[in-house]
């Protein structure tokens, strides 16, 4: 009986193998045709190795004909801030799709690393990416803290990263130190934005008494401080500088405290959750029924409209100037909808998209392609090429990178929300924009 069972079993095994082969043959069809190339790869690579001599100061990445071009994204992908990282990651993925998933004849492979929005998370993610010598360039990180923790490892490994969403001014300071040689960003520094909002409030709106709220994040705390300093310099008065916890939900008490100081203008450069709670609750607080409200790019997203509800109409939001956007932002949103089924999660997907495309353009410029398809990417040359980016037509504007790593177009505009329906969100629409640009 045992023998018969064995025959039965072996038959089953064979059948199941055939079946999986059936299944995989279909999925792997394109890959399968590459397989023959893979077998004679060693012979082919030996010859060009002699032909191309890598003289780059940081060495070269060699990509054999059957290997993918390896890029990585690092940023926060878990925890309460994960929508920020997920949003940027999607920007990169759409950029890859737009290239048909291929660059220089190689499939693009995107590795993602969770950096947890903390410096130690950033350090761990960066050290992992630094170990992998097949990576050519990175997009990330999302939180400035992650960059502070991880950038040394990335620069030392000869890699270059472009952050789509770090806004801490110090990261692109001219005296930022050699550890930051491999760091650039398409996001703009908080220093520009806080100043722009102060000028807008004082000159355009004509308010003289302002209050600020931040949520204890480095981003919001720095931004409201820049605003306050500039607003006072212009001659205005800061009547209250308040702060709430990042996970607070009930804003009415803090708003009541602010109401007692009778401001004409409240600036809260926070993220979507806190921003939504403040906007939704502010009109319920006696004394704040007519106060003017303004936020910044942390809440410049349809999610903010969702979170705030009808009260959001009339809120001012500072953001990069979309009229300076040259690319097809509407087209980007359509692709996003098709791929992920839903609206964008945060503000910096377009910056991530641009960051990836800057890297692609630089790669195409510096990579050496051999006749058999082997690609060499000299690292220092790639870094230099990224720094040399000039008038790059991104969807966030015409981008040029400064020697200290600022690639973002520092043209800040202030928009006003005219329709509380998140579905109507389209700041780039020529006829019927929401939010609508009001300044400058």
């Amino acid at each position: 009986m045992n023998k018969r069972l064995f025959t039965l079993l072996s038959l089953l095994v064979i059948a199941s193998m055939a079946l999986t082969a059936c299944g995989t043959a279909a999925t792997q069809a394109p890959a399968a045709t590459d397989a023959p190339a893979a077998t004679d790869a060693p012979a082919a690579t030996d010859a060009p190795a002699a032909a191309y001599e890598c003289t780059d100061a940081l060495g070269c990445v060699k990509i054999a004909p059957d290997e993918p071009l390896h890029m990585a994204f690092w940023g926060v992908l878990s925890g309460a801030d994960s929508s920020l990282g997920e949003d940027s990651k999607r920007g990169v993925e759409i950029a890859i799709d737009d290239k048909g998933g291929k660059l220089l004849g190689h499939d693009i492979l995107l590795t993602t690393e969770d950096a947890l929005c903390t410096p130690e998370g950033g350090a761990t993610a960066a050290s992992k990416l630094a170990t992998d010598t097949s990576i050519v360039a990175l997009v990330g990180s999302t939180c400035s803290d992650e960059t502070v923790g991880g950038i040394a490892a990335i620069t030392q490994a000869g890699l270059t990263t472009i952050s789509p969403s770090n806004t801490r001014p110090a990261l692109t300071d001219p005296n930022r130190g050699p550890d930051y040689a491999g760091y650039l960003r398409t996001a703009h520094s908080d220093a520009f934005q806080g100043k722009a909002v102060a000028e807008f409030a004082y000159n355009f709106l004509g308010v003289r008494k302002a209050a600020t709220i931040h949520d204890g994040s480095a981003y919001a705390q720095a931004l409201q401080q820049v605003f306050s300093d500039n607003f006072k310099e212009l001659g205005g008065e800061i009547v209250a500088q308040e702060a709430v916890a990042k996970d607070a939900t009930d804003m009415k008490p803090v708003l009541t405290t602010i109401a007692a100081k009778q401001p004409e203008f409240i600036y809260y450069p926070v993220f979507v959750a806190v921003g939504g709670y403040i906007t939704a609750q502010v009109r319920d607080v006696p004394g704040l029924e007519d106060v003017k409200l303004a936020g910044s790019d942390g809440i410049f997203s349809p999610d903010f409209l969702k979170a705030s509800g009808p009260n959001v109409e009339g809120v001012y939001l500072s953001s990069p100037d979309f009229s300076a956007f040259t690319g097809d932002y509407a087209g980007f949103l359509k692709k996003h909808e098709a791929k992920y089924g839903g609206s964008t999660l945060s503000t910096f997907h377009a910056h991530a998209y641009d960051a990836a495309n800057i890297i692609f353009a630089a790669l195409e410029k510096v990579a050496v392609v051999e006749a058999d398809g082997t690609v060499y990417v000299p690292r220092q040359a790639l870094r230099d090429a990224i720094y040399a980016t000039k008038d790059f037509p991104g969807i966030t504007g015409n981008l040029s990178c400064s020697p200290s790593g600022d690639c973002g177009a520092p043209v800040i505009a202030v928009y006003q929300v005219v329709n509380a329906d998140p579905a109507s969100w389209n700041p780039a629409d020529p006829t019927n924009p929401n939010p609508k640009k009001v300044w400058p």
Partner: protein
Amino acid sequence: MRTSFGERMLDLVVTGFLWGIRIAILLAIVIGTIVTVSKGHYTSEQWIGFVVFGVAQGAIYALIALGYTMVYGILRMINFAHGDIFMTGAFGAYFVATWLNTIGFVDRNPFLGLLIPVLFAMILAAAIAMLVERIAYRPLRNAPRLVPLISAIGASFFLEYAFRGFFGPGKYAYPPIKALDGGWTIFNVEIQKVQVLVVAAAAIMMAILYFIVMYTKVGKAMRAVSESQDTAALMGIDVNRIIVSTFALGAAMAGAAGVLFSLVYRQIDFFMGFTPGIKAFTAAVLGGIGNIPGAMVGGLVLGVFESIGPSLFLEGLGIPRPYQLKDVIAYTMLVMILLFRPSGILGERLSKKKA
């Protein structure tokens, strides 16, 4: 009794230190209050406003705290996943409410349009809690005390990230209900309809729960099981069934709290249960864990202190941005209350039993 000189000195230091802390905290509160009040930044309407906001927030804490306290009373176990049960309720209600809203049902019949999502959320939350109990807690009934705690932490992570997988990390907004817009002005203080609804709904639900626990057969069985599982079993009570119904009842309260929370604050995401969960747990301990009226009192006290504390105590002490330290007040008050009453405000009865 042989006590060495060193030991007696230590006792002295300890007692002195404890009294020092008590007096310091009390002094800080009193001085802060006096300074703030004498400065007169706020009108009395604003002070009443603080209390009203605090009560609305506290009612939600209290509803969640009920689940903690019921489970604790019966199993002596911290159900760490309870905050996430609250989140599942909010998500469930969101989808039902959105659907009802798009077909226009809510505008035609606002009362049912509110009630149906609440009921759905309660049922969903109860079902998930029963599932969690069956898989993660029941097999550990006789394990050491901390083992179910770790299992509960695991369940909490699992629920959070399963929902993140289902619905993504983005935010959902509970559809606005027109009937709840606006408010009433009573004694110069404007009170929102939503706040009234939250407090009323919480009160009704707590009353129903109290009735169930005190006067129905199941409730009596629950109290019996919480006294002693073995004796209850000997009396012919199906202990497992009672434990499951406790979980379900507590979870239903949390599910309803999830809907109330989303009605007030609109935003729904997979992480929304974490902070309210911890706060509700604090409220439960504050009131005396295992004690149902204690959970209600604890929730209200916590909500009011959080709302009024930063302006009343901290501002007078000259601390900048006091609202950032709202949670510091909450936890300091917790330690303070535990210093005076080590088993919470109403926790007399259970403290004699060893936790």
